[in-house]
């Protein structure tokens, strides 16, 4: 598995994208949390400082400067947490009491770097200074806890970012690798198909993911392709075989004509050779026609025509032909005219093939039925006979090109008639069914209902 294809995989790239977005979101959210925490801590610090300032005011009010000094010294001595600093200064800056070493230069709120001897290296203290009588009081509070909390929040954010990001990258890499492996298999398989092996198939995983879905589709196409190739190989063999027999006959007849004793005998053999060549030409024409009908999707030759007229016309044409073969042709038509949407010539040829098949295989003293039915699902054409019929096992087979039932091998015909019928039916999206006519064979072609198309039918005047 080439690393480059994993690294360029969609899963990994999505993971990276998620990572960048996550970093941005966490950055913004972290900044907001930090800011809020800092503001809240500062507000809390200020209120604690103001409480002490109030106590200093009370002490001054009660006992003057003396009480004030005593309170500050007492506070410095008793508050052991080193979080607080107090200072009492003369306006000149000279220290009177407290542990703050220097008088700050501001009044009101401010911050002081290292106000006491012990606070060297600590973060600046939040401080409040004010004139009380003719002295300056300073109350400061260490910001150490607020800074520690902010640091802890920041560290937690960074640590969770690293863990989530790392996990995203690992998951991304793993799924990208999994997808890449599957794609590589598809790649190899399709390369093998392109090389001519249509028997290979893609493995389908148990996860049933999108790739499995696509693989299933590809396998279905490969199945069709290999069926098609198999059918094509069989057809080519059948064509070659069926073309060779009239060719062989003609070749033989021409040789005999060359050795004929009288010109009359020679002429007759040449005529027969020509008939064989005609048969050959017809087989080729029919094969070409079938392949053209199957390949084309063009319905520009389709129009709405009267199926009743067509069927009536064909009954007139084949009634004497059937009679000459000792058969009777029955016509069954609905009273109302039945329109059909399609290629009239194709449907005509389809019916002629079916009628001729019926007439040829049914034998004398049989009945041939030609019928048109207007079904709710669409028009249906039916050609039935009361001959020996086709065994159920062969009914699908006889629709394939060049297929002929073994017992009929010696009968004339190319085995293409029904294949052409099937191709024409498929071209019209019609359903072709061969069923038992009890006795005999019954071919039904059920067309879809005439599509509603503008100008398809002439408007009533």
């Amino acid at each position, binding site marked *: 598995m080439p690393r480059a294809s994993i690294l360029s995989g969609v899963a990994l790239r999505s993971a990276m994208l998620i990572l960048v977005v996550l970093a941005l979101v966490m950055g913004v959210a972290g900044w907001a949390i930090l800011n809020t925490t800092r503001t809240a801590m500062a507000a809390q610090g200020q209120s604690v400082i103001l409480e002490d300032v109030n106590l200093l005011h009370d002490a001054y009010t009660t006992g003057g400067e003396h009480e004030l000094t005593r309170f500050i010294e007492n506070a410095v001595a008793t508050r052991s947490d080193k979080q607080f600093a107090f200072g009492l200064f003369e306006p000149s800056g000279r220290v009177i009491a407290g542990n703050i070493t220097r008088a700050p230069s501001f009044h009101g709120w401010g911050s002081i770097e290292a106000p006491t001897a012990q606070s060297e290296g600590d973060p600046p203290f939040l401080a409040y200074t004010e004139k009380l009588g003719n002295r300056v009081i300073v109350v400061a509070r260490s910001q150490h806890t607020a800074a520690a909390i902010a640091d802890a929040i920041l560290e937690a954010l960074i640590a969770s970012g690293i863990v989530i990001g790392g996990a995203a990258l690992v998951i991304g890499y793993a799924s990208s690798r999994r997808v890449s492996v599957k794609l590589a298999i598809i790649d190899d398989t399709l390369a093998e198909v392109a090389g001519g092996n249509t028997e290979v198939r893609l493995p389908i995983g148990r996860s049933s993911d999108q790739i499995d879905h696509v693989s299933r589709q590809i396998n279905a196409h490969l199945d069709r392709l290999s069926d098609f190739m198999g059918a094509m190989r069989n057809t080519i063999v059948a064509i070659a075989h069926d073309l060779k027999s009239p060719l062989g006959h003609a070749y033989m007849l021409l040789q005999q004509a060359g050795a004929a004793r009288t010109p009359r005998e020679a002429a007759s053999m040449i*005529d027969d050779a*020509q008939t064989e*060549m*005609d048969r050959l*030409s*017809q087989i080729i*024409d029919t094969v*070409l*026609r079938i392949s*053209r009908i199957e390949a084309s999707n063009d319905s520009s*030759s389709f129009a709405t025509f009267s199926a009743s007229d067509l069927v009536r016309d064909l009954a*007139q*044409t*084949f009634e*004497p*032909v059937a009679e*000459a073969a000792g058969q009777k042709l029955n016509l069954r038509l609905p009273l109302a005219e039945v329109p059909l949407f399609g290629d009239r*010539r*194709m449907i*005509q*040829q389809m019916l*002629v093939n079916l009628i*001729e098949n019926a*007439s*040829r295989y049914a034998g004398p003293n049989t009945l041939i039925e030609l019928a048109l039915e207007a079904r709710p699902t669409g028009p249906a054409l039916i050609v039935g006979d009361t001959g020996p019929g086709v065994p159920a096992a062969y009914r699908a087979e006889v629709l394939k090109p060049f297929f002929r039932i073994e017992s009929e091998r010696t009968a*004339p*015909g190319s085995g293409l*008639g029904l294949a052409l019928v099937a191709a024409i039916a498929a071209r019209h999206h019609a359903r072709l069914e061969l069923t038992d006519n009890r006795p005999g064979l019954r071919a039904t072609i059920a067309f879809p209902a005439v599509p509603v198309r503008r100008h398809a039918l002439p408007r009533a005047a």
Partner: protein
Amino acid sequence: MKLLVAEDDPQSSAFIRKGLIQEGHQVDSFADGRDVLSACLYTPYDMLILDRMMPGMDGLSVLKSLRAAGRQLPVLFLTAMGDIDDRVEGLLAGGDDYLVKPFHFSELSARVTSLARRPQHNPKATRLALHDLELDLLERTAVRARTAIELQAKEFALLEILMRNAGRIVTKTMLLERVWDFTFDPRTTVVETHMSRLRAKVDKPFDVPLIHTTRNSGYSIHAPR
């Protein structure tokens, strides 16, 4: 007649030329579509026998250019492209007849003769007559020697085509195309059966037969000589 054969296969071209010359026609031939077009534009031919696949310019384009230039000479397509769609395309482009290779020379000959005489018979004529046989095309009735003959629609159509081409051979394929609109050869004896029924009505009850079969060619109708 002065005919032009447009065919790029020398063997086929020689075969067609030889046959048509033997029948008394004057024949020119070209293998390139462009030569065919310019020859037709500058020489008054009576008919063009046109292959579809030719070097230089294909047959269909030659015909379209000729019709666009107002040349109305009859054109018979003689081609290996024999599918119904090809045929329809050829006739829509202005072709008068379509014959698919391989072909019997007698088929070509019959079609050339039929096509050449086409403008001479009056398509608006409502009656056709030959010897003692008369057809009324409006009433769809046939009378021979003052006896009415009852004909089925297909039999009437067969007789009409024979009479329109009286004295000339009409082939089985021509009848299939014109009476039945079949562009394929059915495997049963459609033409033979209907022709035999027609003869049973038109010829059998009378002394002199009018309809004749020419072996391997087709049918013709003519008055007794």
